[in-house]
């Protein structure tokens, strides 16, 4: 009996959607676009956050050497760096290698570098402090200490980048909440109005249902299902598009876009489930608002 009721309600909801297919197509499209924007915000936020977390787990530094130093001095600096607690030299980039990397980065414009009389780039060591809690370490102190070493010209560290990205992340979070809130309201508005139109189109049928003894729930249930289905369809389509876009961008090396360090990942399970649940929830609420506001005047 219980399942029979909901199956019948689902059947009537699908029939409502088919009968009003144009309106539903337009509103589902609009809902999809709204969720696409919202999902994109979350996707960008999740990716930057993941990258920052990864970066935050280790403090990396580039130690630039003075120009013209010999092999002996270089080894002495390396020894000094290895002697630092928790430090590991991950790479040595010679002057030639640095130039080679610059040429690669310049691509077709690399010919510009041919005009240089001598290689101005310094050699450097890439240094990583493993398992260092970035928050409790003062990279400025390490930087100052390393710069006091003989033959070291300058030290740059990753947190300078992290600070900049954390700012972007905070902005994205705030913008996401504001934009997400507004988009949710828009979705609610669209669903409520679509169902309002269905209710008006079904006025006669609803009147007859009440006439032959239908309970309020019997009449209302299909509209709630309709709202939930519409929200779900919009949410699912948006997630599908986002997944497609993510896959497309992941396949194309992002070096082209000068962001070589970000390996784009799709939304985590919690975000997918969250967006799915939010879309159904908004659909149900939209349906409830519509039947709450327009049901009684119809049935009279």
């Amino acid at each position: 009996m219980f399942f029979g009721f909901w199956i019948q309600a689902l059947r009537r909801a699908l029939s409502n959607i088919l009968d009003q297919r144009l309106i539903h197509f337009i509103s589902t499209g609009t809902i999809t676009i709204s969720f696409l924007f919202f999902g994109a915000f979350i996707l960008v936020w999740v990716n930057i956050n993941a990258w920052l977390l990864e970066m935050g787990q280790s403090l990396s530094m580039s130690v630039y050497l003075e120009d013209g130093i010999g092999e002996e001095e270089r080894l002495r600096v390396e020894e000094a760096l290895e002697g630092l607690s928790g430090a590991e030299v991950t790479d040595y980039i010679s002057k030639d290698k640095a130039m080679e990397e610059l040429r690669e980065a310049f691509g077709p414009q690399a010919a510009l570098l041919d005009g240089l009389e001598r290689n101005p780039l310094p050699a450097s060591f890439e240094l990583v402090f493993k398992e260092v809690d970035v928050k409790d370490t003062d990279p400025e102190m390490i930087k100052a200490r390393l710069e006091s070493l003989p033959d070291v010209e300058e030290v740059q560290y990753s947190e300078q980048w992290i600070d900049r990205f954390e700012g972007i992340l905070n902005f994205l979070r705030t913008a996401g909440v504001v934009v997400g809130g507004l988009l949710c309201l828009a979705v609610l508005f669209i669903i409520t109005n679509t169902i309002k139109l269905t209710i008006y189109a079904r006025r006669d049928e609803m009147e007859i249902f009440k006439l032959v003894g239908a309970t309020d729930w019997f009449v209302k249930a299909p509209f709630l299902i309709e709202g939930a289905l519409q929200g779900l369809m919009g949410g699912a389509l948006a997630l599908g598009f986002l997944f497609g876009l993510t896959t497309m961008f992941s396949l194309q090396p992002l070096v082209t876009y000068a962001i070589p360090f970000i390996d784009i990942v799709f939304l985590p399970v919690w975000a997918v489930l969250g967006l799915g649940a939010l879309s159904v929830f908004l659909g149900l609420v939209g349906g409830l608002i519509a039947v709450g506001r327009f049901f009684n005047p119809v049935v009279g």
Partner: protein
Amino acid sequence: MIQLFNVTKQYGQNAALADINLRIRQGEFVFVTGPSGAGKSTLLRVVFGALKPTSGQVLVGGINLARISRYKLDIMRRKIGFVFQDFKLLDGKTVFQNVAVALQVTGERASIIRKKTHQTLRAVGLSQKEGYYPPELSGGEQQRIAIARAIINDPIILLADEPTGSLDPDITREIMLLFRTINLRGTTLVLATHSRELLSNTSQRTVYLKNGGIEREMEPQ
């Protein structure tokens, strides 16, 4: 079966029903008549629970309509059929679907819905027209669909508001015969009409309304 105690229905300053006291016994066939605006339709709607009286009590099958929940009223309506002058059919649904809807709302199984709908359509003489749409049928046939829908749940009461108002005399006779058959099966029937012709051919109990009040009653002969 139906009892009205001092029922008044007021619309602003106008009383559609004024202090009505009426008792209709189980299995009775009662005509309610009077000029336009006398309160016939209001009376039927009050008995159906579609209108709440401004004052007074309405008891249907011993249940006080003012004291039951909306849900119970809905359930009760499955046992009260209602037939209108304008049929109130869904033009986009077939004859079968129009009738079956009254069983669908009760959550009845599909096989039983099919069986009972066929039976009821046969009883009103429409078994050959199940797949037709209402606009394809005559006025009399459309009213038969409405009657089939009203009786498919075996109602204890059937209310009919000017059911022959838009039908020609021959069809009216057919429809009245159908009502008599339904009444003979034990269904209490209350039929509102202003047709003098219909009343002149009947010996049933008749309640005359005027300005919302009962002017007089004629007992069955």
